[in-house]
């Protein structure tokens, strides 16, 4: 009897490790319902690729840099474009938030959640900062503990209820407020053409046409200009910290390498195959090369960080590399925006 109950409570969930938590959760949950969307495809349809440098938004005193759109946006866009119906809830009360999670799990539905990585005990210790927008999936319980499919981990894992509650109801910005979400209607048959077209259009717009200097390709140039002046403007010590943060945002877990550029190139390649458009495949190859320039930038920035020497020349060189990234990406997205899909 006990065995039977356990089986009833334990749905099969096919976990696959992905690079980024948001596109990964999308891919993993959709697959559970028989809709196969790869992580790069989810990232592309959701127009995840982006760039922004926001010197006024400081995290621990360091200016913010991002290589992707704001958390949650990819998910929202993909669901809308593919016609997937998602139910989502936030809670002001911890107990209610945990009870609702249990209730949905009992129906055999995998549940996505927002969490703070600081409170996830299975996370590598060195990555446990107060980052509040990490996505993971609970797909059942094992006694008290929750069975977790965390897309950036190699295998499934478990978490105790106390840690999960702390992670879901972490304070700070943005506060996850126990947010959970689950699919209520997933179409089996879909056409990817229109979603891909919309995703590409939006990415081209975001990279080329936002009329503010901090965003898209202009944002890369904006950072390049500021970076050049770091040593004289903020001093050697801070300059190194600022630089370190740019590298981390570009290469730390989730980016798939080179600040999501390789993931987007993988998307373009897959789209080329699906839509039979050779141009997209060529652009994928070109974006791979841009990704390699980004990596070269990170490699050299890492050396500057390591040597910690005040060397204005090296900052000027790094700035020059970013200018090159900007020029190449501008060219690439201009070409991409002209591809008729």
């Amino acid at each position, binding site marked *: 009897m006990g065995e039977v109950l356990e089986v009833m409570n334990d749905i099969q969930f096919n976990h696959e490790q992905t690079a980024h938590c948001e596109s990964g959760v999308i891919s993993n949950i959709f697959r559970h319902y028989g809709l196969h969307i790869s992580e790069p495809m989810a990232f592309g349809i959701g127009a995840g690729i982006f760039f922004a440098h926001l010197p006024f938004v400081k995290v621990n005193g360091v200016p913010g840099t991002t290589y992707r759109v704001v958390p949650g946006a990819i998910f929202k866009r993909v669901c809308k474009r593919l016609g997937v119906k998602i139910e989502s809830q936030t809670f002001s009360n911890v107990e209610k938030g945990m009870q609702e999670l249990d209730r949905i799990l009992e129906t055999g539905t995998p549940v996505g959640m927002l969490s703070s990585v600081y409170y996830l005990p299975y996370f590598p210790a060195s990555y446990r900062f107060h980052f509040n927008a990490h996505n993971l999936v609970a797909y059942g319980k094992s006694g008290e503990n929750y069975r977790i499919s965390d897309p950036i981990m190699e295998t499934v894992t478990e978490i105790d209820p106390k840690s999960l509650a702390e992670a879901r109801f972490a304070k*700070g910005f943005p506060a996850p407020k126990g947010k959970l979400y689950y699919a209520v209607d997933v179409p089996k048959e879909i056409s990817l053409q229109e979603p891909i077209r919309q995703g590409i259009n939006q990415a081209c717009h975001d990279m080329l046409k936002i009329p503010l200097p901090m965003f898209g390709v202009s944002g890369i140039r904006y950072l390049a200009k500021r970076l050049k002046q770091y040593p004289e403007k903020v001093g050697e010590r801070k300059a190194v910290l600022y630089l370190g943060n740019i590298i981390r945002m570009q290469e730390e877990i989730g980016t798939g390498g080179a600040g999501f550029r390789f993931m987007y190139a993988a998307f373009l390649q897959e789209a080329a195959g699906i839509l039979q458009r050779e141009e997209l495949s060529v652009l994928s190859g070109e974006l791979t090369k841009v990704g390699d320039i980004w990596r070269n930038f990170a490699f050299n920035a890492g050396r500057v960080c390591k040597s910690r020497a005040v060397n204005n020349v090296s900052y000027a060189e790094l700035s020059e590399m970013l200018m090159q990234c900007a020029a190449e990406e501008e060219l690439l997205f201009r070409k991409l925006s002209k591809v008729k899909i």
Partner: protein
Amino acid sequence: MKKEEVPQDGNNMHEGKFRQLFYATDNAGQYVPVTSVGWEPENVAMTQAWEEIHAKVEAARQRVLAGEASPVLYYMEKTIMDLPLLASYVGKFQWQVKRHMKPAVFNKLSDNMLHKYAAAFKISIKELKEVK
């Protein structure tokens, strides 16, 4: 980035337990997922971020031992929080938390308030009161 170029610069930071996923191209130019144990520039940046945190924690510890600051400052640094985050955890304004970082004010805090700080830092009240 080619599959063979996916960096495998391990360091002890992940205790060998964690591999992250990258997208790289195979010989035919097709993108495939490849796992990596780490990359030198990221390791450098990460180590540096932690050194900065450890330096802040140590500076706070010295100030507490010298009687210039209360344990609230030390534990805030130790749990990698900043003032706005800590204030929201204990349900106070930032200026109030800042006041609680003065030893004289801290020593007069109610048990209820101490309890809130201890819960935010996930330690006991006894641990909260003593910084070694």
